[in-house]
């Protein structure tokens, strides 16, 4: 248990406590004309971290993880609002539901089922660029269902008026407050991320790293590599699902953007920005991405271009992201760090003396 509560999770908790005091994330700004993004950061921290279980730890780039975010968000919305469905002549009616745990159970159930089906189809048949393209294709299927299946999903407009749930022992309107919802979301996010940390640090997580580094060696050691790839894929859908569940309640509305290519791409950027070899990287990436968007978009309408430039600089200068740079700083001290940044020779020199593996927290 000691290891579970070691630093990366502690940092996460500390950051979640500090976050409401950061400009864009401050829920108290809501009334002042800002739309607070603290809770958005949390939803995307889950989304990006789940995606990065595949990207950073198994070394496989899914370009469609927004579909899992969307499936959970739409499931929560439909469960909460109730719906009528006429499926090939079989009418089905569902009354509005207020039980958030049942909404979560349905969301996770459907997401994991879909994730498992896809993993069984995709994993044994593809890797590399084909893997990315097939995940993208399946995500487009989900996107167009939400977009075109108007009677059921609300089409382009999506679904509005999703009632926030009531927490036991608290007033019915407690979660209506942005700040309260942030607190609720932070606790849920933290607990879910603790589960992810457990997975990464377990022997299962080590095998994923082995697969990332050398699939063939892992196979010849006796590991059923595809079994691990399938299981990692299924597990990676769980975190976007919890994020999507929170997202639906937080926004109180949902539209096809949730499952868009843009979101699938955003989490790639967040993970690379924060650092894909680190547990905390995608969380940090999600926070910085939304803070930048919030800050830069107030200054210029070309905010996406500026975020793009920052992203390119990071890919070139620090391929291990902010967490990688912090790790180097800690390892080499400031003077060596600067030398390494400017001189390739210094980098090679220190790399040869390297004693620690590159997986950082």
């Amino acid at each position, binding site marked *: 248990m000691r290891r579970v509560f070691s630093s990366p999770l502690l940092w996460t908790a500390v950051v979640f406590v500090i976050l409401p005091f950061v400009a864009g994330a401050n829920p108290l700004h809501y009334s002042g004309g800002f739309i607070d993004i603290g809770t958005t950061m949390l939803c995307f921290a889950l989304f990006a971290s789940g995606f990065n279980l595949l990207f950073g730890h198994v070394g496989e780039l899914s370009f469609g993880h927004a579909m899992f975010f969307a499936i959970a968000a739409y499931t929560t919305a439909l469960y909460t609002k109730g719906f009528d469905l006429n499926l090939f002549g079989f009418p089905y009616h569902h009354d509005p539901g207020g039980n958030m745990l049942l909404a979560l159970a349905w969301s996770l159930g459907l997401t994991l089922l879909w994730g498992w089906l896809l993993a069984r189809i995709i994993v044994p048949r593809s890797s590399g660029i084909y893997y990315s393209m097939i995940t993208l294709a399946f995500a487009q299927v989900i996107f167009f269902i939400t977009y075109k299946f108007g009677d059921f999903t609300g089409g382009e407009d999506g679904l509005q008026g999703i009632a926030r749930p009531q927490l036991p022992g608290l007033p019915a309107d407690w979660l209506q407050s942005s700040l309260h919802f942030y607190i609720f979301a932070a606790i849920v996010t933290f607990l879910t991320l603790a589960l992810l940390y457990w997975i990464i640090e*377990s022997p299962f997580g080590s095998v994923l790293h082995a697969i990332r580094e050398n699939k063939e060696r892992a196979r*010849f050691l006796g590991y*059923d590599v595809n079994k691990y790839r399938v299981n990692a894929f299924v597990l990676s859908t769980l975190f976007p699902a919890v994020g999507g569940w929170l997202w639906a309640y937080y926004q109180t509305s949902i539209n096809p953007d949730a499952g868009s290519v843009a979101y699938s791409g955003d989490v790639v950027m967040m993970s690379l920005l924060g650092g894909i070899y680190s547990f905390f990287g995608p969380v940090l990436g999600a926070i910085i991405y939304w803070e930048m968007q919030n800050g830069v978009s107030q200054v210029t309408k070309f905010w996406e271009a500026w975020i793009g430039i920052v992203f390119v600089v990071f890919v070139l200068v620090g391929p291990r992201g902010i967490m990688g740079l912090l790790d180097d700083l800690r390892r080499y001290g400031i003077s060596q760090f600067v030398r390494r940044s400017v001189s390739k020779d210094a980098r090679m020199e220190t790399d040869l003396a390297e004693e620690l593996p590159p997986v950082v927290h």
Partner: protein
Amino acid sequence: MAVAFRTEGLTRRFSGFTAVNNVSIEIPEGGVRTIIGPNGAGKTTFFNLLSGRIPPSAGRIFFGDRDVTDLLPYQRARLGMARSFQITNIFGKLSVEENVRLAVQAVYDGKANFFLPSSRMGDLRTKTEALLHDIGLFDARAALAENLSHGDQRRLEIGLVLASDPKVLLLDEPLAGMSPTETHATVELIKRVAEGRTVLLVEHDIDVIMSISRTITVFQTGAVLATGTPQEIRGNEAVQRAYLGELAE
């Protein structure tokens, strides 16, 4: 004597070129069996067929009594077959200790719950440390595998192969590119691990081959030219013409 490996009419063709041609061979348990032959004789292809890296075009492979022709590499590994590669094949970006630990842990795959801490996996830690001492890399355990010297990397790979305590080891040119000191240490290591196991070796160093092998099989153009003790092979005229003679010149 019990048989470790048996092949029946094993053949592998690469677009018109036959690398391994109708090889039927029996390898008894125990000791070092070295496979020699000129470049392109099909030694490595034969290894790849035995370990499941590539499927045969025809023929069957038996491991003990069991037909393993259609088994995947990881399934063969679980039966007790482990191999090293001609080009070093390790987890370069992971530490030496992590490399060895993963190899030891592989034995527990499917038997232990991999979501519980590794401390639950019995003697994983002691086994890892013992193996690190065995291959002489205990002091380098924290280093990244890719930063080791070539010889140490080759030894690490032998360590990975040994981790599962396999019945049969397939070592593809384990001494390639090693310095004389490293070669000596590695030969001693191979001799040690060969006790109670079957080691299949592809090697070029004649002195090593003669000192280490119980039997030698000579490959030529994808077929077995001769099999015998080192003395018999040394005295075999066909072998001298095909292979040793070429070296002696």
